[in-house]
């Protein structure tokens, strides 16, 4: 019992903080609520340190439903970084929009706990509880501006499609349970590998699980919710939603498709190839057409999911170790560059009458010299240009894909990165090479240390992961060792 609690100490800390925030919030005046943001950030940082302290141990607790090992620790720390960054980006924005409520921070913390559970679960039921905790908080975050039609629409849309996706997953998981007689990943995997398992239901289960996850990460053809949700949600919440749930879902996807379904590669690899290619097509081509930056970033993140799926495909083959660790590294890089990009939009909204469109960003090179500079950094990183994190991530990922024998898929991926270069560069073109059609109204109210710190961390992350990636690469490689042992 003691071990059980020790292993989930970081989660307990977050729960306690979230509860405190909820209790204290109504007692505070609006100005006092700013401190809640720092409370949440402090909790995330402490939890991350606590997680890091567990790195040398391995716990399999709560009747082997939660595994705290290097793999889950990598993801948990990454998720806590996402949570902390999201809170750094949010404070000023919420204040200016007059929705600075403690609930927001509590929701982020609860969602983070759900994601952490998704990453560390080795049992279907535990996984599903984590998933739903994350999902419910996400719907609320998307619809947090309840006086804005767009935000409410985003929350509603996210909820309906999310519930649908959860049901797919649940149904698939139920079939897996029915086939294996257990909810433990390892036991299911053994049963499928060893036993005679009726292939019809197994294929159905694989298709359902894949579809469910495709919904959750926003892979085509189940991606339609993403642009509307990111556009409608409050920008900092969109930053969180574009990154956090994807990380958690990929943590689970890797476990599902190696531990449980590793022996069924021949079934899921072709399916996933189709999904990945379709996702890249949708992501790249639709992003080309967008005028709204948040929608553009939504389609761009769909494109990145396509690349990530390529690496998952590589895990299904000889390139297992590198395939998995490349997913981990890619997610780390993606965190910084994507949250950074959203963060710059938040910054511009705080300081001016910025309306998230390409025309609004025209001439930002002059009116926001620093923000435009790091926005260019994030755009180049998303394109995959060295020496940024995005390049190394893509390089590592293509290595995995080529190594697994899918050089042609890497070529397809490269082709879409070329297309994507066009719309990422367009942001830079607008910022530096065009002059604004009408000047933005600037205001000085938006000054925020939190946001500056958040953007600084994101930019530093992008550069450090691009130039000195060795520690993170090593961590990613160590993290997947145990998973491969199975």
């Amino acid at each position: 019992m003691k071990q059980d609690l020790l292993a989930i100490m970081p989660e307990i800390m977050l729960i306690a903080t979230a509860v405190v925030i909820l209790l204290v919030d109504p007692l505070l005046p609006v100005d006092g609520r700013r401190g809640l943001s720092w409370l949440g950030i402090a909790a995330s940082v402490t939890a991350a340190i606590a997680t890091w302290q567990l790195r040398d141990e391995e716990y399999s607790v709560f009747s082997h439903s939660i595994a705290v090992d290097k793999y889950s620790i990598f993801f948990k720390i990454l998720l806590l970084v996402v949570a902390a960054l999201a809170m750094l980006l949010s404070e000023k924005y919420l204040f200016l929009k007059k929705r600075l409520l403690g609930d927001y921070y509590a929701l982020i913390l609860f969602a983070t706990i759900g994601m952490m559970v998704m990453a560390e679960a080795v049992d279907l039921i535990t996984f599903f509880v984590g998933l739903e905790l994350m999902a419910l908080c996400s719907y609320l975050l998307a619809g947090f501006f309840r006086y804005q039609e767009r935000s409410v629409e985003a929350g509603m849309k996210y909820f309906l499609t999310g519930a649908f996706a959860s049901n797919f997953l649940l149904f698939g998981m139920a079939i897996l349970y029915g086939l294996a007689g257990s909810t433990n990943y390892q036991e299911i995997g053994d049963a499928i590998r060893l036993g005679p398992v009726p292939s019809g239901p197994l294929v159905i289960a694989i298709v359902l699980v894949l579809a469910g996850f495709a919904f959750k990460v926003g892979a085509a053809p189940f991606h339609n919710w993403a642009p509307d949700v990111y556009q409608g949600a409050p920008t900092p919440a969109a930053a969180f939603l574009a990154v956090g749930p994807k990380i958690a879902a990929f943590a689970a996807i890797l476990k599902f498709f190696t531990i449980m379904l590793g022996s069924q590669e021949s079934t899921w690899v072709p399916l996933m190839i189709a999904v990945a290619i379709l996702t890249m097509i949708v992501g790249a081509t639709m992003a080309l057409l967008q005028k709204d930056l948040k929608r553009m970033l939504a389609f761009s993140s769909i494109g990145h999911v396509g690349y990530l799926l390529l690496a998952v495909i590589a895990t299904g083959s000889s390139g297992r170790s590198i395939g998995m660790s490349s997913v981990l590294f890619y997610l780390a890089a993606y965190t910084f560059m994507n949250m950074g990009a959203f963060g710059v939009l938040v910054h511009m909204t705080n300081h001016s009458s910025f309306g998230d469109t390409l025309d609004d960003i025209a001439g930002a090179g002059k009116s926001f010299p620093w923000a435009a500079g790091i926005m260019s950094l994030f755009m180049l990183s998303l394109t995959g240009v060295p020496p940024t994190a995005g390049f190394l991530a893509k390089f590592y990922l293509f290595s995995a894909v080529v190594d697994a024998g899918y050089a042609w898929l890497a070529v397809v991926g490269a082709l879409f990165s070329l297309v994507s270069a066009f719309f990422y560069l367009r942001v830079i073109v607008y910022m530096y090479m065009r002059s604004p059609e009408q000047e933005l109204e600037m205001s000085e109210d938006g000054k925020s240390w939190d946001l500056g710190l958040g953007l600084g961390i994101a930019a530093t992350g992008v550069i450090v992961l691009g130039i000195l990636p060795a520690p993170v690469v090593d961590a990613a490689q160590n993290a997947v060792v145990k998973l491969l042992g199975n």
Partner: protein
Amino acid sequence: MYEFQEQIGFPILTVITFLPALGGLAVLFARGKPNVYKGITLAVTGVNFLLSLVLIQYFDRYTATMQFVEKVPWISSLGISYHMAVDGISVLLIMLTTLLSLIIVPASWNYIKDRELQFFAAFLFLETGLIGVFCARDLFMFYVFWEVMLIPMYFIIGVWGGPRRIYAAIKFFLFTFAGSLLMLIAIVAIAYLARSNPFATPVFDMDLLENATFSYQVQVLAFLAFFIAFAVKVPMWPLHTWLPDAHVEAPTAGSVILAGVMLKVGGYGMLRLCIPLFPDAVVAIAPYILVLSIIAIVYGALVSLVQKDLKKLVAYSSVSHMGFVTAGIFALNIVGIEGGIMVMFSHGLLTGALFLMVGFLYERLHTREISEMGGLAGPFPVMAAFFSFFALASLGLPGLSGFVGEFLSLVGLFTYSKPMAAVASIGIILAAAYLLWMYQRVMFTGLRDQKWYKVPDYSLREIVSLAPLGILAVWAGVYPNTFLQLIQPPAARLTEKMAPYMAESGSVVERIFASLGGLF
């Protein structure tokens, strides 16, 4: 794993590569008058040029082994190391880069009016990328520098360029990026194929890769991927279409670096990677490349002949001249390779100078239309003198640098195939035609407007920026040995590498059929 060659006492390659980037950061953070950051830029590029002279001084020119080696593990779990080293070819091109970078600072001193600070910073970052490409001995690093030089150039064209700058910048970026992505996948593929066993780390070190052998099919595919990336940069016909747009829109300094150094990076890549890594494929594909080169030579010259815009004329002449580079290199004999490298060097000097002069002309006349000029030798006698010198050098007048390279390149091609050499030499005649005709229309034939007498002739600043290029052009023309000495050992090493694969001989047509037979 660690390796450091004590040749000069400090890691000169690292310094010479990253000093400009540090300068760029200093410029970005500089506050104060424009002269402060212009001064920083001038100082940094000046020091870098001196460093490159030191490098040549200490360089042992009688060996083909890589020198000034610096090697430190970088991302060891992926087999990537920080590995820098140079041979004669790199040293020569590094010197060219630092020289041109130094020259463009005074040349663009007053030309850029808007956001000067970022302009000079971009230039310094660009210099780092360019020198880095010439120093890298690790494929991963090579690729990183290769891409790093792309971004500043994209900004230079897109922010400080002419009216259609955005179109030109995006076209430039997408063409190059498309090539790079193919190369990236080829890099990854050969790095993984070169491993001793499936659990070993991939091999990115060029020293090790040069000893690896790849199957014929892998060689052909990887060669093509690399080659397309380099051919876009060179640029070879038919991948050259970005070049005229980029040059016409780019500011003068951008054109100078673009034509002077960036195009050379393509030729350098072919020498450094394509030939040593894939000798089988090179021998098989060389005839096709030669055909393309000859088309480029003649086509570029013909198109130059009909240009109405002075800058476009120089741009298309680059396509023609760079055809001699690839023709020389892929003749696959020592004379041809040396010729190719000499053309690169001399083209860097001469085209750099021509673009500078077009820029100076534009600053005075505010037009580049040849039809609006005429009789300019009257108001601008100094300009006319410089113009005639560089135009003559560019058309290959013996005694100046252009002649040496093109002559050697043609000799190389002649040994490979006589008919090809015959066709290629038409290019030289056409070069004389378009350059002399251009000179006549610009400098003689009746002055259009008397008001140009009120515009001053070349200032000291402009003369100082052109003079070093002129001196080097004469030097390389009269006593090319200084430069040939540098490139002779590495060129010999390349041909030795090719020798075992060159057994088959016969006419070009026979070779083409032979290579087709090998593919299927």
